[in-house]
């Protein structure tokens, strides 16, 4: 291992890079290590701690963010891969006029308990609803099947997504 670290430092090529990422509509630029994971860029470099870490094998989805509108596990994306792209985190969900309907729905339907999986669940839900305005229970469970919740048993999360879907269809 020590050989590997030494090799990287003497090899021709950069182990840091300047990146510019649009995060929640705001341009953020930073010099980062190429090995920095996107989730750590968000949490540590930008101080946006709403995106969480729950595992070390890309299994739990607590780190889910939207990358160009598509839900991804930010622990399995390098920050440098987000260069020039748009990232949406939970902090970017609320609209100028108030909460996003998905946030309101999670609250009204008791779709969260400890809150740790909630940011990721809401973001994936918004991506789902952008493509499918009236998803069935099965479609919702399928869309969320890359993310783990330990508290709720998913039932109220499904209700919350259905409720948000209705709100969005009604233009709320």
């Amino acid at each position, binding site marked *: *291992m020590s050989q*590997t670290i030494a090799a*990287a*430092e003497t090899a021709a090529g950069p182990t840091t890079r300047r990146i510019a990422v649009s995060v929640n509509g705001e341009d953020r630029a930073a010099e980062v290590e*190429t090995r920095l994971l996107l989730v750590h860029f968000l949490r540590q470099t930008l101080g946006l701690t709403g995106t969480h870490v729950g595992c070390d094998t890309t299994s739990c989805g607590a780190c889910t963010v939207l990358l160009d509108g598509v839900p991804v596990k930010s622990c399995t*994306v390098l920050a440098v*891969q987000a260069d020039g792209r748009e990232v949406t985190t939970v902090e970017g969900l609320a609209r100028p006029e108030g909460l996003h309907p998905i946030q309101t729905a999670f609250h009204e339907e008791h779709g969260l308990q400890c809150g740790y999986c909630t940011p990721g669940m809401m973001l994936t839900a918004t991506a789902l609803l952008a493509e499918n305005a009236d998803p069935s229970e099965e479609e919702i469970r399928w869309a969320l*099947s*890359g993310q783990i919740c330990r508290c709720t048993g998913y039932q109220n999360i499904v209700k919350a997504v259905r409720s948000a879907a209705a709100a969005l269809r009604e233009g709320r």
Partner: protein
Amino acid sequence: MYPARFTYFVPASVGEAVSLLAEHGDEAKVLAGGQSLIPLMKLRFAAPTALVDVNRIETLRGIEQKDGYLRIGALVRHKECERSDLLRGRYGVLGSAAPQISDPLVRNLGTVCGSVAHADPQGDWGSALLAANASVVAEGPSGTRVIALGELFVGPFTTSLEPAEVLTEVRVPDPGPRTGGAYLKLERKVGDFATAATAVQVELDDAGRVARAGIALTAVGATNIRAGRAEASLTGAEPGHEAFAEAARLAAEEAEPVADHRGDAEYKRNVIRVFVERGLAAAAESARAAA
């Protein structure tokens, strides 16, 4: 949770990518979706000193019907396959496998070619593509070559690719309209690797008999494997329960399962048998409906 250091490059063309790989040798890896590579790097089971990110190479995009074959570019994500209308009907074994890869989030980034190059015997695309008789195109310092999938997989996580070769596309030969396919996977939960899985493609001739069957197996061998004897037993056969049961029995014999927490060898062989039979019935049904 924290990868070791590496240098990082973003080539604009395949040629540039190949040069970079050649320059950095064994310690360089291609980064496409990263959904297999980055997890390994986070656990430090892999520690490449150079990553060559191919995500900006435009020529690697797209699923398209070409003359006599379907082309799947190296940057095609699993999710694109899940949604593509092209991967239904005659290419149904692929369309059937796509939604079962890993989980929906991983499918947004992971690529077909990345999965194939990773050569995990528990990987799904390998079997689906073997059953569809597919090949890959690899570009390297000495030029471009086409490799049949059966020759690509050498062992667990080992392909016959040279270190500086990049997979640029998958080519799936057009099996004709009277074709159906099915991918059946037993997973303990979404995102788990297969306990056992089967990819089946049935091509019917004008008389409604089986012209060719492709049967490939996941997680029951050192690589994804073709059940050649099972396939042969179906050539010219009348599609139906008897032929399918026999082919399934042969396929189970050709499987080489290893006991683990997902089950013992006897169990996994039986899953193979059951799934090949079910898959053949579904594929034949789909092939007949297409006629």
